[in-house]
């Protein structure tokens, strides 16, 4: 068993580490307060190639594999979570539908722009009546000549307000729904009838916006059905495959944040003096630190292993990816809770990043498939074996 990380991935992690330290971390508190990432930083993310991690090289991306993506995300998640989220939709849910199911023309037109970060893409599935029950979407698409007319409302769309395009899921056959009645469309923001609705007010993830997207007789050319004409009615499978693929990386984000919280906690415990000695000398604190480190270690092994399985064996890792997503995100929430406890009152204050991590991490158990959905997936895979 070989756990050696290839040299080029090590160098990439080092670049991201420096970028976090020199450019992102110094402004992470400012971004939190202003709820906005300065354009200058987005430009630097483009220059570094961060928008094209998962896009095939023939379309201008890096295609660094599951392990590579996880390592980059892990490192990038050691600062304000909004930075990772900014590049997240282009690498993940906003592009993978096209990468997996798009036509050659769609790939040639959209993927190079996504990979370079010239365009931001997003994924529009969720609706007020369709969260975990994604098949219950109400947005419809009706064929009118050369165009599909989309009508409906999407919400909780990550990067919806900055997106230049969206992969949108709509019902094309009310009777069939998930069984052949949902279709995926590529919608550009300039298409008539496409509007960005309200920007949602969230518990955390400040600097990253989620918004409503409104389709009011939005006209989408026929050739913008993901995968073209034959894929009309096959959009639900595209959505599920896209979400499957993102699960490992969600684990990596949680892991990176947990690692940072551990480092912050160890540092604080050594210098915070109570009862005449550093609190690191009290067993109650030591046990929390030990639990944090142990669970992080376990998470890292399963994440890297699942990524390695996907990269080298080419095997389906549906079950493992769900295990990684549920375990790493729940682990990170426990670690965040302990970190707040180690920091005590200071852990509750906005002056330090701990409370920010605590709020931001709460979302990881919900988005891109809730913990409960992950458990359903794991059980389903288990019981069919």
């Amino acid at each position: 068993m070989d756990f050696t990380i290839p040299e080029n991935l090590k160098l990439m992690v080092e670049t991201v580490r420096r970028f976090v330290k020199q450019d992102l971390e110094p402004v992470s508190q400012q971004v939190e307060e202003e709820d906005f990432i300065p354009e200058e930083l987005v430009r630097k993310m483009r220059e570094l190639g961060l928008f094209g991690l998962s896009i095939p090289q023939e379309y201008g991306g890096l295609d660094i594999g599951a392990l590579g993506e996880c390592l980059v995300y892990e490192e990038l998640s050691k600062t304000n979570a909004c930075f990772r989220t900014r590049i997240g939709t282009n690498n993940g849910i906003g592009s993978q539908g096209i990468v997996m199911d798009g036509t050659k023309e769609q790939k040639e037109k959209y993927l190079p722009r996504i990979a370079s970060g010239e365009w931001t893409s997003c994924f529009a599935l969720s609706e007020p009546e369709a969260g975990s029950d994604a098949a219950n979407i109400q947005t419809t698409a009706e064929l009118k000549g050369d165009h599909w007319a989309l009508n409906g409302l999407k919400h909780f769309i990550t990067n919806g307000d900055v997106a230049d395009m969206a992969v949108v899921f709509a019902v094309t056959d009310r009777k069939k729904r998930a069984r052949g009645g949902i279709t995926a469309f590529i919608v550009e923001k300039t298409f008539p009838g496409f509007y960005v609705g309200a920007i949602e007010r969230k518990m955390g993830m400040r600097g990253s916006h989620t918004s409503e997207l409104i389709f009011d007789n939005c006209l989408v050319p026929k050739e913008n059905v993901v995968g073209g004409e034959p894929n009309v009615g096959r959009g639900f499978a595209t959505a599920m495959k896209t979400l499957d693929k993102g699960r490992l990386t969600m684990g990596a984000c949680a892991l990176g944040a947990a690692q940072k919280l551990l480092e912050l906690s160890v540092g604080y415990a050594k210098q915070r003096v109570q009862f005449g000695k550093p609190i690191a000398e009290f067993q109650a604190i030591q046990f929390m630190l030990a639990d944090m480190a142990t669970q992080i270690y376990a998470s890292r092994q399963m994440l890297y292993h699942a990524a390695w399985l996907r990269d080298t064996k080419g095997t389906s890792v549906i079950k493992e990816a769900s295990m990684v997503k549920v375990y790493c995100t729940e682990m990170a929430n426990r670690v965040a809770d302990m970190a707040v406890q180690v920091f005590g009152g200071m852990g509750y204050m906005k002056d330090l990043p701990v409370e920010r991590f605590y709020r931001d991490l709460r979302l990881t158990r919900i988005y891109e498939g809730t913990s409960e959905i992950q458990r359903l997936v794991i059980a389903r895979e288990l019981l069919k074996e």
Partner: protein
Amino acid sequence: MKSLVCLKQVPDTETQIKVNPEGTGIVTEGIKHIINPYDEFSVEEALRLKEKFKEGEVVILAIGPDRATESIRTALAMGADRGIHVNDPAVNTADPFAVAQALAAAAKDVQYDVIFCGHRAIDDDFCEVGAMLAEFLGLPQVTLVTKVEVAADKKSAILERDIEGGKETVEVPLPCVVTSQKGLNEPRYASLPGIMKAKKKPIDAKNAAALGVSVEAKLQSKEYSMPPERKAGKKIEGLEPPDAAKQVVQALRNEAKII
């Protein structure tokens, strides 16, 4: 515009340095290594010159053990064209004189308009290699450079260098040796696409024999030691402020002997 950049791999500035039990060096196990920051300025400046003249080559020359390839690769990822890695136990840990001898031998096979060196390496702080290299090659040298303007014909350059309390501007014929100082530029990151491309760029591995040089070190390091640990401070307690102040003054005068 062709530049040869001499690069050294050094322990990360954030490393907690420990001396090994024998006192013959530092513990290298488990520490991270980076490009010497002054050499990173050199890489950046060489890349900018190549970009400005829209032609040329940036060659990275490094001496060190196997792990030094990682630093060469990082420089290639920043945009340099190829690397030369001199990896020979006789040279890797030798003194500045021997290192400069080896660099001069390696430089003989390379075409260049400028040789860049960091003005010092942050590990051993000798600040000697650049100057010695220029001597061995019979080239003019300009040290502590913070600005480089190469003439259009590439026959000379105007350089700005740090001097005590100000700047000196000098003109130098090319080729020459330049040692880089902080302030020269803001080095770029090794971008992720750059790292992918660097995988395919050549690194030429050489030992002393292949360079046709037998180095002769002039210095032998005798011993490494940590600075003495700071002694605990003295606390003056339980006195009224005027009395405490008197005690402090006494202590500063009689014990610390600094006033």
